[in-house]
């Protein structure tokens, strides 16, 4: 969708940009001529059934949770951007294309996200609506989530437990694989090669008939990661080659199937298998480590969705996950295997013309065999009930109210309601459509939520020190903001967004040597306040065969511990470690007649590496670029050549203490598309 055409001059000059803005404003002032109306469906016209699209009418289309997330921000990487990262992982895509702070131990190494100053376990990662966090750790390694097979990657910052469940304290990452109902057979095969031994291949094949859509996606990747780095030693700067950081292999295989049953039902089966074998880099100061880790995940989801006569739908889903981590270092071995069984049932009903209500239940069962828990397998059950309400008082005033109550083994989790409002303060012309996407004008948005994080299996059962009486972490926060849109998506669209947020996390779990014999044991100890602002502006331009988009975003995050206890000696009132005060990113994509060019620049200010706010990693600014060319071949096929570069400025920096980041690196991809 961001393949645009270039006008006469190749360089994007500011003069033309302002001229384009002025033209757009002039066009808009002339009248509400071109707002397209959706075709009227046969069923009653409700909030759920209206769709503004031109695809063949789907009989049952999923109502996504985002419809109940009124007032929240949403950062989405669209399919065109994801196409540049097909062989990569979520860590690469989010790290390069957004201003989100990814704590990265190196290429292919552990990468976790920190949303709004919270920790890695405070971001819920959902795949097709189900939480895929490792039950043992309660967090996700984003380097173990290949993009392959996923059609959507979005991030929603802010507390959102009512929508996404446990762990959505700082925010949620939402991955989705949507079936592609376009008829016919499509496929792509891609081969990658890059610096420091990077080799990869990926393929995707889809076929659809009116009743059945099938997709198979697979990817493979390996890298030596033997890049040079420099250490400051007494003799001067000494050059070393990184050892023991190779990605031996990482493959992902995800077939999925969607089958329309009758007139109102849809059956989906989605499978995602990932397997990664990595050498773990222990730090440049640690000698003689041969740490290695095998991570395997098997995920299977079966779902059935059926539309009801009155415009609603109900859905049941069952999921089976298995996560394996096998770690070894010079004879020390730690293995773990967790099996998760989940069931989810929800019913979405239309309440009149302007409201919809979703009620749901879900249950999870965990069975873990982990070396650290002892010889006995551990099981745990959790359940939750939720209600989501979306009410559009008027087309220009949209409200949502959600609530979730979870039951955890140690007792009930806190009740977590969410309230959200969006109000179109000003619009250049009246709109009576129920659809609010891409509506120009000024919108005020606000959201307040309570949230929780269930204690992980490690926190409850680790020997020694596991604390089964641990309470869930709780949190609450609010955000207010403005969003301004001018233009139309077909020609020129400028969107600016400004959000202020403030949130508190309470009963934050800390591991301290408070257990028997001085063993480390988790306790609910800490309270942390995080506040800041997020600003972004995005421009999309379409002129004939030229398409361009540019996005500038900035985030300011101040996160401090506000209250602790005597046992937790980290000082109060200082910026937390690994939370940069300022982050910014600038990305631009251009497309013209088969040519593609994009550049991304990210900036992160200094981060403290300890709680004393003393040692720090210096600020770092990175630049990446992509150049591509698509050539049409006979038989409706095409060939795309993509050249990518990361760290184009060849910055020498550490992404984490004693973990040097790679210098300038290149990669080449050759992709064959049909059609």
């Amino acid at each position: 969708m961001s393949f645009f055409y270039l006008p006469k001059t190749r360089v994007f000059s500011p003069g033309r940009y302002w001229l384009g803005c002025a033209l757009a404003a002039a066009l808009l002032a002339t009248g509400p001529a071109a707002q397209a109306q959706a075709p009227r469906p046969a069923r009653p016209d409700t909030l759920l059934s209206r769709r503004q699209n031109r695809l063949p009418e789907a009989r049952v289309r999923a109502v996504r949770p985002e419809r109940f997330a009124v007032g929240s921000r949403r950062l989405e990487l669209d399919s065109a951007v994801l196409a540049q990262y097909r062989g990569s992982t979520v860590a690469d895509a989010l790290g390069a294309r957004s201003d989100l702070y990814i704590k990265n131990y190196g290429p292919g190494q552990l990468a976790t996200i920190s949303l709004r100053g919270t920790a890695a376990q405070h971001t819920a990662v959902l795949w097709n609506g189900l939480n895929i966090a490792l039950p043992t750790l309660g967090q996700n390694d984003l380097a173990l989530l290949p993009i392959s097979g996923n059609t959507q990657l979005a991030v929603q910052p802010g507390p959102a437990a009512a929508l996404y469940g446990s762990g959505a304290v700082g925010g949620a990452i939402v991955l989705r694989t949507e079936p592609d109902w376009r008829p016919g057979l499509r496929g792509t095969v891609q081969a990658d090669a890059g610096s420091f031994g990077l080799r990869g291949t990926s393929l995707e094949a889809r076929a659809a008939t009116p009743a059945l859509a099938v997709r198979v996606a697979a990817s493979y990747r390996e890298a030596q990661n033997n890049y040079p780095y420099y250490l400051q030693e007494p003799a001067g700067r000494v050059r070393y080659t990184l050892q023991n950081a190779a990605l031996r292999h990482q493959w992902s295989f995800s077939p999925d199937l969607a089958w329309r049953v009758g007139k109102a039902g849809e059956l989906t089966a989605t499978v995602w298998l990932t397997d990664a074998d990595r050498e773990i880099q222990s730090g440049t100061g640690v000698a003689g480590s041969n740490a290695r880790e095998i991570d395997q995940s098997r995920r299977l989801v079966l779902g059935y969705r059926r539309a009801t006569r009155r415009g609603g739908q109900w859905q049941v889903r069952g999921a089976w996950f298995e996560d394996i981590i096998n770690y070894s270092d010079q004879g020390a071995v730690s293995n773990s295997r967790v099996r998760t069984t989940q069931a989810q049932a929800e019913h979405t009903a239309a309440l009149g013309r302007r409201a919809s209500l979703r009620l749901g239940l879900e249950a999870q069962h965990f069975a873990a065999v982990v070396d650290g828990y002892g010889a006995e397998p551990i099981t745990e059950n959790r359940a939750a009930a939720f209600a989501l309400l979306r009410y559009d008082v008027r087309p220009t005033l949209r409200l949502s109210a959600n609530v979730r109550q979870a039951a955890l083994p140690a007792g009930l989790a806190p009740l977590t309601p969410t309230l959200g409002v969006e109000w179109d303060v000003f619009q250049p012309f009246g709109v009576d459509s129920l659809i609010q996407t891409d509506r120009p004008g000024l919108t005020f948005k606000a959201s307040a939520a309570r949230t929780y994080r269930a204690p992980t299996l490690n926190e409850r059962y680790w020997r020694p020190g596991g604390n089964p009486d641990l309470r869930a972490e709780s949190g609450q926060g609010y955000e207010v903001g403005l969003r301004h849109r001018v233009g139309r998506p077909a020609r020129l669209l400028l969107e600016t967004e400004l959000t202020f947020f403030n949130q508190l996390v309470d009963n934050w779990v800390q591991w301290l040597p408070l257990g028997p014999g001085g063993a480390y044991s988790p306790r609910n100890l800490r309270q942390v306040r995080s506040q800041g602002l997020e600003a972004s502006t995005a421009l999309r331009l379409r002129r004939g065969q030229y398409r361009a988009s540019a996005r500038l975003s900035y985030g300011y995050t101040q996160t401090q511990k506000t209250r602790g206890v005597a046992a937790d000696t980290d000082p109060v009132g200082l910026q937390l470690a690994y939370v940069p005060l300022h982050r910014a990113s600038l990305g631009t994509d251009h497309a013209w007649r088969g040519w593609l060019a994009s550049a991304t620049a990210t900036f992160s200010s200094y981060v403290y590496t300890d709680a004393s706010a003393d040692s720090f990693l210096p600020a770092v600014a990175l630049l990446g670029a992509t150049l591509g060319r698509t050539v049409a071949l006979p038989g409706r096929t095409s060939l795309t050549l993509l050249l990518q570069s990361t760290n184009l400025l060849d910055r020498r920096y550490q992404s984490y203490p004693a973990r040097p980041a790679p210098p300038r690196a290149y990669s080449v991809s050759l992709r064959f598309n049909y059609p």
Partner: protein
Amino acid sequence: MKKTLLALLSAAVLVGCNPDKEIGPAIPGSPGVFVLSEGQFGKGDGTVSAFGTGTKSLLVDAFGTINGNAMLGDVVQDMGLANGRGYICVNASNKVEVVDAGTFKSVATIRNIRQPRYFASTSSARGYVTSWRGPYTSYQPGKVMVLDLNSNTVIDSITVGRNPEQLLAVGGLLYVPNSYDNTISVIDAATNKVTATVTVTAGPKTVVADQTGNLWALCSQPYGATSTPPASLVRFAAGSTTASLTLPFASSGASQLRISPDKTQLYYSYGGAEYRLSTSATALPTTPFIRRSFNGFGIDPRDGVIYAAVSTGYTTNGRFVRYPAAGGAAIDSFTVKVGPNGFVFY
């Protein structure tokens, strides 16, 4: 486009200016004490700070400041002074850093010493470093590496018991406590051979010699072990392989055996407090000397002032507290880097 990008980036860099880092002067002159901070494992941020006891001036991270911001390494375990030089055992980096004791300028780096623990010397030409072998799930018999202090190279290695810790060089002999076994290896420094093995009740970590020439060892549960035998303070004569006095504790956990400069008072940490007893005592003291748990303990040989390291976990900077020789209220305290664990007086 590139120009606007560069302008934007430079503006952003100004916005995100790094905090100021002061470059200090030279290390405070003698009398002083080097304070060792282990750093957090994996971050490579071990440091040695220098404190001038007369001037009360503190140079945090002496090695980095003097040597152009070089990183000392991962987990600074011990430091010894010999031959006008300091020998810093950097445990996780498998090396011993050699610095000039007066200026802290780096002289040499002795690499490939696996898991070095503690340093001792018998003369200005011979140094010894205890070295562990094996991962934490299956430790093997460790070694004592013999160093030539003039060329700063390893010239020999002696196999001892598992996980040898703080060794003592006295009277031409080396006493090496093997903390994962219940033994102390006695090595003849002239021949570099183990000549005797003393058996004790649990894993010994430190051996000290008192004014009569007897040797004392504090034995407690070894690192990484799951069983917790009661600790004991053991005394044995210089030529003997069996204990002449065994003072048992009620439980495990006794550590950090130290001896006063005049070698008449022993200090140890047990049950969250520091205790002191005379070398002629026949029973353990019941009342603590200082009611506080410390991560490191040292006594200034010049004035007897006690230096105690307080570590608040591995995510915050620790500090050291000074107490008068007779105990009582603290004199003052200073902040150093993460995980302070030891003191070397110069």
